[in-house]
Protein backbone atom coordinates (compact mmCIF):
# COMPACT_ATOMS: atom_id res chain seq x y z
CA UNK A 1 0.00 0.00 0.00
CA UNK A 2 1.04 3.55 -0.57
CA UNK A 3 0.88 4.23 3.15
CA UNK A 4 3.79 1.87 3.64
CA UNK A 5 5.56 3.04 0.52
CA UNK A 6 5.47 6.60 1.78
CA UNK A 7 7.53 5.58 4.81
CA UNK A 8 10.21 3.77 2.88
CA UNK A 9 13.56 5.08 1.86
CA UNK A 10 16.43 3.27 0.27
CA UNK A 11 18.83 2.09 2.95
CA UNK A 12 22.11 3.96 3.26
CA UNK A 13 21.14 6.98 1.18
CA UNK A 14 20.38 10.59 1.96
CA UNK A 15 17.95 11.33 -0.82
CA UNK A 16 16.61 7.91 -1.73
CA UNK A 17 13.05 9.07 -1.24
CA UNK A 18 10.45 8.51 -2.50
CA UNK A 19 11.19 5.26 -4.25
CA UNK A 20 9.82 5.01 -7.75
CA UNK A 21 7.36 2.17 -8.26
CA UNK A 22 7.33 -0.12 -11.26
CA UNK A 23 4.18 -2.19 -11.20
CA UNK A 24 3.85 -5.60 -12.79
CA UNK A 25 0.78 -6.76 -10.96
CA UNK A 26 -1.44 -4.99 -8.50
CA UNK A 27 -4.80 -5.18 -6.86
CA UNK A 28 -7.10 -2.94 -4.93
CA UNK A 29 -7.95 -3.86 -1.40
CA UNK A 30 -10.87 -2.90 0.73
CA UNK A 31 -10.18 -1.07 3.90
CA UNK A 32 -12.48 0.36 6.50
CA UNK A 33 -12.59 4.16 6.33
CA UNK A 34 -11.54 5.75 9.61
CA UNK A 35 -11.73 9.49 9.32
CA UNK A 36 -9.84 10.26 12.50
CA UNK A 37 -6.97 7.97 11.59
CA UNK A 38 -6.80 9.33 8.06
CA UNK A 39 -6.79 12.91 9.31
CA UNK A 40 -3.99 12.08 11.70
CA UNK A 41 -1.80 10.94 8.82
CA UNK A 42 -1.48 14.53 7.59
CA UNK A 43 -1.84 16.28 10.92
CA UNK A 44 0.85 18.78 11.70
CA UNK A 45 3.36 19.03 13.24
CA UNK A 46 3.77 15.26 13.36
CA UNK A 47 2.89 14.34 9.81
CA UNK A 48 2.84 10.61 9.30
CA UNK A 49 2.63 10.97 5.56
CA UNK A 50 4.96 13.08 3.44
CA UNK A 51 2.31 14.70 1.28
CA UNK A 52 4.61 16.08 -1.41
CA UNK A 53 6.23 12.70 -1.88
CA UNK A 54 2.81 11.08 -2.05
CA UNK A 55 1.73 13.41 -4.87
CA UNK A 56 4.97 12.65 -6.71
CA UNK A 57 4.33 8.92 -6.35
CA UNK A 58 0.76 9.31 -7.59
CA UNK A 59 1.99 11.21 -10.63
CA UNK A 60 4.43 8.38 -11.34
CA UNK A 61 1.54 5.94 -11.25
CA UNK A 62 -0.56 8.04 -13.59
CA UNK A 63 -2.91 8.93 -10.77
CA UNK A 64 -2.29 12.67 -10.63
CA UNK A 65 -5.35 14.69 -9.80
CA UNK A 66 -6.55 12.08 -7.34
CA UNK A 67 -5.61 14.41 -4.50
CA UNK A 68 -5.49 18.22 -4.29
CA UNK A 69 -2.02 19.83 -4.66
CA UNK A 70 -1.95 20.71 -0.98
CA UNK A 71 -3.67 19.51 2.16
CA UNK A 72 -6.80 21.67 2.40
CA UNK A 73 -7.46 23.88 5.40
CA UNK A 74 -9.80 22.30 7.91
CA UNK A 75 -9.07 18.95 6.33
CA UNK A 76 -10.25 17.17 9.51
CA UNK A 77 -13.86 17.88 8.60
CA UNK A 78 -13.40 17.60 4.85
CA UNK A 79 -14.82 14.14 4.33
CA UNK A 80 -14.36 14.20 0.58
CA UNK A 81 -10.64 14.86 0.98
CA UNK A 82 -10.24 12.31 3.75
CA UNK A 83 -12.01 9.63 1.76
CA UNK A 84 -9.81 10.34 -1.26
CA UNK A 85 -6.70 10.18 0.93
CA UNK A 86 -7.87 6.98 2.57
CA UNK A 87 -8.49 5.44 -0.82
CA UNK A 88 -5.02 6.39 -2.05
CA UNK A 89 -3.15 5.30 1.09
CA UNK A 90 -4.98 2.13 2.00
CA UNK A 91 -6.91 0.82 -0.97
CA UNK A 92 -5.99 2.05 -4.40
CA UNK A 93 -2.70 0.37 -5.14
CA UNK A 94 -1.50 -2.72 -3.48
CA UNK A 95 1.42 -3.81 -5.57
CA UNK A 96 1.66 -7.59 -5.71
CA UNK A 97 4.65 -7.86 -8.00
CA UNK A 98 6.89 -5.03 -9.02
CA UNK A 99 10.02 -3.13 -8.21
CA UNK A 100 10.96 -0.15 -6.09
CA UNK A 101 13.72 1.97 -7.56
CA UNK A 102 15.94 4.26 -5.54
CA UNK A 103 15.96 7.76 -7.09
CA UNK A 104 19.51 8.39 -5.89
CA UNK A 105 21.40 5.23 -6.77
CA UNK A 106 19.04 3.44 -9.13
CA UNK A 107 19.23 0.41 -6.90
CA UNK A 108 16.25 -1.88 -7.37
CA UNK A 109 14.24 -3.59 -4.67
CA UNK A 110 11.79 -6.30 -5.66
CA UNK A 111 8.21 -6.62 -4.45
CA UNK A 112 7.01 -10.21 -4.49
CA UNK A 113 3.62 -11.45 -3.39
CA UNK A 114 2.93 -8.06 -1.88
CA UNK A 115 6.11 -7.99 0.23
CA UNK A 116 8.78 -5.42 -0.63
CA UNK A 117 12.30 -6.58 0.12
CA UNK A 118 14.76 -3.85 1.04
CA UNK A 119 17.57 -6.23 1.90
Amino acid at each position, binding site marked *: *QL*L*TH*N*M*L*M*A*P*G*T*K*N*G*FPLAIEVEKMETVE*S*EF*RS*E*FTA*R*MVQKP*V*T*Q*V*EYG*ALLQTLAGLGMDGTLPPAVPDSYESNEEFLRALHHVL*MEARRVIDGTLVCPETGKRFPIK*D*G*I*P*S*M*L
Partner: protein
Amino acid sequence: MKLKQLVGELQGVQSWRHPKSELEQYPTPPDIAAHMLLAADAEDGLEDALVADLGCGGGVLGIGAALLGAAHVLAVDLDPAALEVAAENVEEFEVPVSLLGCDVVQLAMRSGPEGAPSGVADAEGGADAGAAGGAFDIVLMNPPFGTRNESHGADVAFLQAGLRLCRPGGAVYSLHKTSTRPFIAKKAAEAGGEASVVAELRFEIPRMYKHHRQPSKDVAVDFWRAALAAG
Protein backbone atom coordinates in the same frame (compact mmCIF):
# COMPACT_ATOMS: atom_id res chain seq x y z
CA MET B 1 -11.23 -8.22 24.10
CA LYS B 2 -10.64 -10.44 27.10
CA LEU B 3 -7.25 -12.02 27.74
CA LYS B 4 -8.52 -15.56 27.31
CA GLN B 5 -10.19 -14.76 24.02
CA LEU B 6 -7.10 -12.99 22.69
CA VAL B 7 -4.81 -15.85 23.71
CA GLY B 8 -7.18 -18.21 21.92
CA GLU B 9 -7.05 -16.12 18.76
CA LEU B 10 -3.27 -15.80 18.87
CA GLN B 11 -2.84 -19.55 19.21
CA GLY B 12 -4.04 -19.64 15.62
CA VAL B 13 -1.02 -17.66 14.46
CA GLN B 14 1.53 -20.06 13.00
CA SER B 15 5.19 -19.79 13.94
CA TRP B 16 7.76 -20.09 11.23
CA ARG B 17 9.07 -23.53 10.48
CA HIS B 18 12.83 -23.27 10.43
CA PRO B 19 14.07 -20.90 13.06
CA LYS B 20 17.55 -19.59 12.44
CA SER B 21 19.93 -19.76 15.36
CA GLU B 22 22.08 -16.90 14.08
CA LEU B 23 19.07 -14.56 14.07
CA GLU B 24 18.17 -15.77 17.56
CA GLN B 25 14.57 -16.28 16.61
CA TYR B 26 12.22 -17.29 19.39
CA PRO B 27 8.50 -17.13 18.78
CA THR B 28 6.52 -15.02 21.24
CA PRO B 29 4.20 -17.41 23.09
CA PRO B 30 0.51 -16.50 22.63
CA ASP B 31 -0.06 -15.75 26.31
CA ILE B 32 2.92 -13.40 26.51
CA ALA B 33 1.91 -11.73 23.25
CA ALA B 34 -1.62 -11.25 24.58
CA HIS B 35 -0.34 -9.72 27.83
CA MET B 36 1.90 -7.33 25.91
CA LEU B 37 -0.93 -6.30 23.62
CA LEU B 38 -3.48 -5.73 26.36
CA ALA B 39 -0.98 -3.71 28.37
CA ALA B 40 -0.16 -1.58 25.32
CA ASP B 41 -3.85 -1.16 24.60
CA ALA B 42 -4.64 -0.11 28.16
CA GLU B 43 -1.79 2.38 28.38
CA ASP B 44 -1.54 3.83 24.88
CA GLY B 45 -4.65 2.63 23.05
CA LEU B 46 -4.35 0.37 20.02
CA GLU B 47 -7.67 1.51 18.55
CA ASP B 48 -7.01 3.42 15.31
CA ALA B 49 -3.26 3.39 15.97
CA LEU B 50 -0.46 3.11 13.46
CA VAL B 51 1.65 0.22 14.72
CA ALA B 52 4.99 -1.32 13.82
CA ASP B 53 5.98 -4.90 14.65
CA LEU B 54 9.76 -5.16 14.44
CA GLY B 55 11.35 -8.56 13.88
CA CYS B 56 7.82 -9.82 13.40
CA GLY B 57 8.52 -13.50 12.75
CA GLY B 58 5.13 -15.10 12.19
CA GLY B 59 3.54 -11.76 12.98
CA VAL B 60 1.79 -12.63 16.23
CA LEU B 61 2.21 -9.19 17.81
CA GLY B 62 1.21 -7.27 14.70
CA ILE B 63 -1.79 -9.46 13.99
CA GLY B 64 -2.84 -9.19 17.63
CA ALA B 65 -2.59 -5.40 17.46
CA ALA B 66 -4.81 -5.39 14.39
CA LEU B 67 -7.33 -7.64 16.16
CA LEU B 68 -7.43 -5.06 18.95
CA GLY B 69 -8.34 -2.29 16.51
CA ALA B 70 -5.09 -0.89 15.12
CA ALA B 71 -5.81 0.96 11.89
CA HIS B 72 -2.69 -0.31 10.20
CA VAL B 73 0.32 -2.41 11.12
CA LEU B 74 3.68 -2.55 9.38
CA ALA B 75 5.40 -5.85 10.22
CA VAL B 76 9.11 -6.02 9.43
CA ASP B 77 11.52 -8.92 9.37
CA LEU B 78 14.70 -9.61 7.46
CA ASP B 79 14.07 -13.34 7.21
CA PRO B 80 12.10 -14.19 4.05
CA ALA B 81 11.03 -17.53 5.54
CA ALA B 82 9.46 -15.77 8.52
CA LEU B 83 7.67 -13.30 6.24
CA GLU B 84 6.26 -16.13 4.19
CA VAL B 85 4.60 -17.56 7.27
CA ALA B 86 3.53 -14.09 8.38
CA ALA B 87 1.88 -13.58 4.98
CA GLU B 88 -0.12 -16.78 5.42
CA ASN B 89 -1.19 -15.66 8.88
CA VAL B 90 -2.21 -12.20 7.69
CA GLU B 91 -4.30 -13.74 4.94
CA GLU B 92 -5.89 -16.17 7.38
CA PHE B 93 -6.81 -13.42 9.85
CA GLU B 94 -7.80 -10.84 7.22
CA VAL B 95 -6.18 -8.00 9.13
CA PRO B 96 -4.70 -4.67 7.94
CA VAL B 97 -1.07 -5.73 8.28
CA SER B 98 1.49 -5.03 5.57
CA LEU B 99 4.78 -6.87 5.48
CA LEU B 100 8.22 -5.61 4.66
CA GLY B 101 11.49 -7.43 4.23
CA CYS B 102 14.04 -5.13 5.77
CA ASP B 103 16.70 -4.92 8.43
CA VAL B 104 14.99 -3.17 11.32
CA VAL B 105 18.06 -1.14 12.13
CA GLN B 106 18.44 0.02 8.53
CA LEU B 107 14.78 0.93 8.38
CA ALA B 108 15.25 3.24 11.34
CA MET B 109 18.59 4.60 10.19
CA ARG B 110 17.19 6.15 7.06
CA SER B 111 17.93 9.82 7.10
CA GLY B 112 14.77 11.19 5.63
CA PRO B 113 14.46 14.49 3.84
CA GLU B 114 13.54 17.48 5.97
CA GLY B 115 10.29 16.67 7.66
CA ALA B 116 9.96 13.24 6.15
CA PRO B 117 7.45 11.13 7.96
CA SER B 118 9.89 8.45 8.84
CA GLY B 119 11.88 11.43 9.85
CA VAL B 120 14.55 9.51 11.38
CA ALA B 121 17.66 10.88 12.84
CA ASP B 122 20.66 11.38 10.68
CA ALA B 123 22.58 8.24 9.90
CA GLU B 124 25.80 9.52 11.41
CA GLY B 125 24.19 11.49 14.19
CA GLY B 126 23.19 9.01 16.82
CA ALA B 127 22.94 11.91 19.22
CA ASP B 128 19.71 13.28 17.81
CA ALA B 129 18.04 9.90 17.79
CA GLY B 130 14.46 10.31 18.78
CA ALA B 131 14.56 14.04 18.29
CA ALA B 132 13.08 13.85 14.83
CA GLY B 133 10.52 11.24 15.67
CA GLY B 134 8.98 8.69 13.38
CA ALA B 135 5.48 7.91 12.26
CA PHE B 136 4.31 5.13 14.53
CA ASP B 137 2.04 5.47 17.54
CA ILE B 138 3.07 2.14 19.00
CA VAL B 139 6.05 -0.09 18.24
CA LEU B 140 5.88 -3.71 19.36
CA MET B 141 8.77 -6.14 19.39
CA ASN B 142 10.19 -9.32 20.76
CA PRO B 143 13.76 -8.67 19.66
CA PRO B 144 16.66 -11.10 19.67
CA PHE B 145 18.08 -11.24 23.19
CA GLY B 146 21.43 -10.27 21.74
CA THR B 147 23.31 -12.79 23.80
CA ARG B 148 24.66 -15.04 21.07
CA ASN B 149 27.84 -14.00 19.33
CA GLU B 150 26.05 -13.57 16.00
CA SER B 151 23.35 -11.39 17.45
CA HIS B 152 25.45 -9.45 19.89
CA GLY B 153 23.91 -6.07 20.63
CA ALA B 154 20.76 -6.77 18.61
CA ASP B 155 18.53 -6.23 21.65
CA VAL B 156 19.70 -2.65 22.12
CA ALA B 157 19.82 -1.98 18.37
CA PHE B 158 16.16 -3.02 18.09
CA LEU B 159 15.15 -0.83 21.01
CA GLN B 160 16.93 2.19 19.55
CA ALA B 161 15.35 1.51 16.17
CA GLY B 162 11.93 1.28 17.79
CA LEU B 163 12.36 4.63 19.50
CA ARG B 164 13.42 6.23 16.23
CA LEU B 165 10.37 4.91 14.43
CA CYS B 166 8.03 6.12 17.18
CA ARG B 167 6.27 9.44 16.90
CA PRO B 168 6.81 11.88 19.77
CA GLY B 169 4.43 10.76 22.49
CA GLY B 170 4.41 7.22 21.15
CA ALA B 171 5.68 4.14 22.94
CA VAL B 172 7.79 1.06 22.35
CA TYR B 173 6.87 -2.26 23.96
CA SER B 174 9.66 -4.76 24.10
CA LEU B 175 11.05 -7.85 25.84
CA HIS B 176 14.58 -8.05 27.19
CA LYS B 177 16.45 -10.43 29.44
CA THR B 178 16.10 -9.39 33.05
CA SER B 179 19.84 -9.76 33.49
CA THR B 180 20.31 -6.76 31.15
CA ARG B 181 17.93 -4.44 33.04
CA PRO B 182 20.29 -1.60 34.06
CA PHE B 183 21.91 -1.64 30.63
CA ILE B 184 18.56 -1.46 28.81
CA ALA B 185 17.41 1.40 31.06
CA LYS B 186 20.57 3.34 30.25
CA LYS B 187 20.37 2.71 26.50
CA ALA B 188 16.69 3.63 26.35
CA ALA B 189 17.36 6.91 28.16
CA GLU B 190 20.18 7.71 25.73
CA ALA B 191 17.78 7.19 22.84
CA GLY B 192 15.27 9.62 24.35
CA GLY B 193 12.98 7.01 25.82
CA GLU B 194 11.46 7.07 29.26
CA ALA B 195 11.62 3.38 29.98
CA SER B 196 10.06 1.33 32.72
CA VAL B 197 9.58 -2.36 33.38
CA VAL B 198 5.89 -3.19 33.10
CA ALA B 199 6.23 -6.79 34.24
CA GLU B 200 8.69 -9.54 34.85
CA LEU B 201 7.92 -12.66 32.86
CA ARG B 202 9.13 -16.20 32.56
CA PHE B 203 9.82 -16.99 28.97
CA GLU B 204 9.89 -20.68 28.26
CA ILE B 205 12.36 -21.41 25.55
CA PRO B 206 11.84 -24.83 24.07
CA ARG B 207 14.84 -26.77 22.93
CA MET B 208 15.12 -25.49 19.38
CA TYR B 209 18.75 -25.06 18.56
CA LYS B 210 21.86 -27.21 18.74
CA HIS B 211 23.45 -25.03 21.38
CA HIS B 212 20.55 -25.75 23.73
CA ARG B 213 21.58 -28.39 26.21
CA GLN B 214 18.45 -28.60 28.31
CA PRO B 215 15.05 -29.81 27.03
CA SER B 216 13.57 -26.41 27.73
CA LYS B 217 14.59 -23.49 29.81
CA ASP B 218 12.86 -20.69 31.62
CA VAL B 219 14.43 -17.32 31.08
CA ALA B 220 13.61 -14.29 33.20
CA VAL B 221 12.44 -11.58 30.84
CA ASP B 222 11.44 -7.97 31.45
CA PHE B 223 8.51 -6.50 29.62
CA TRP B 224 9.43 -2.87 28.94
CA ARG B 225 7.53 0.20 27.92
CA ALA B 226 9.69 3.00 26.58
CA ALA B 227 7.82 6.21 25.86
CA LEU B 228 9.19 8.86 23.59
CA ALA B 229 8.74 12.35 24.99
CA ALA B 230 6.09 14.37 23.16
CA GLY B 231 7.10 17.32 21.01
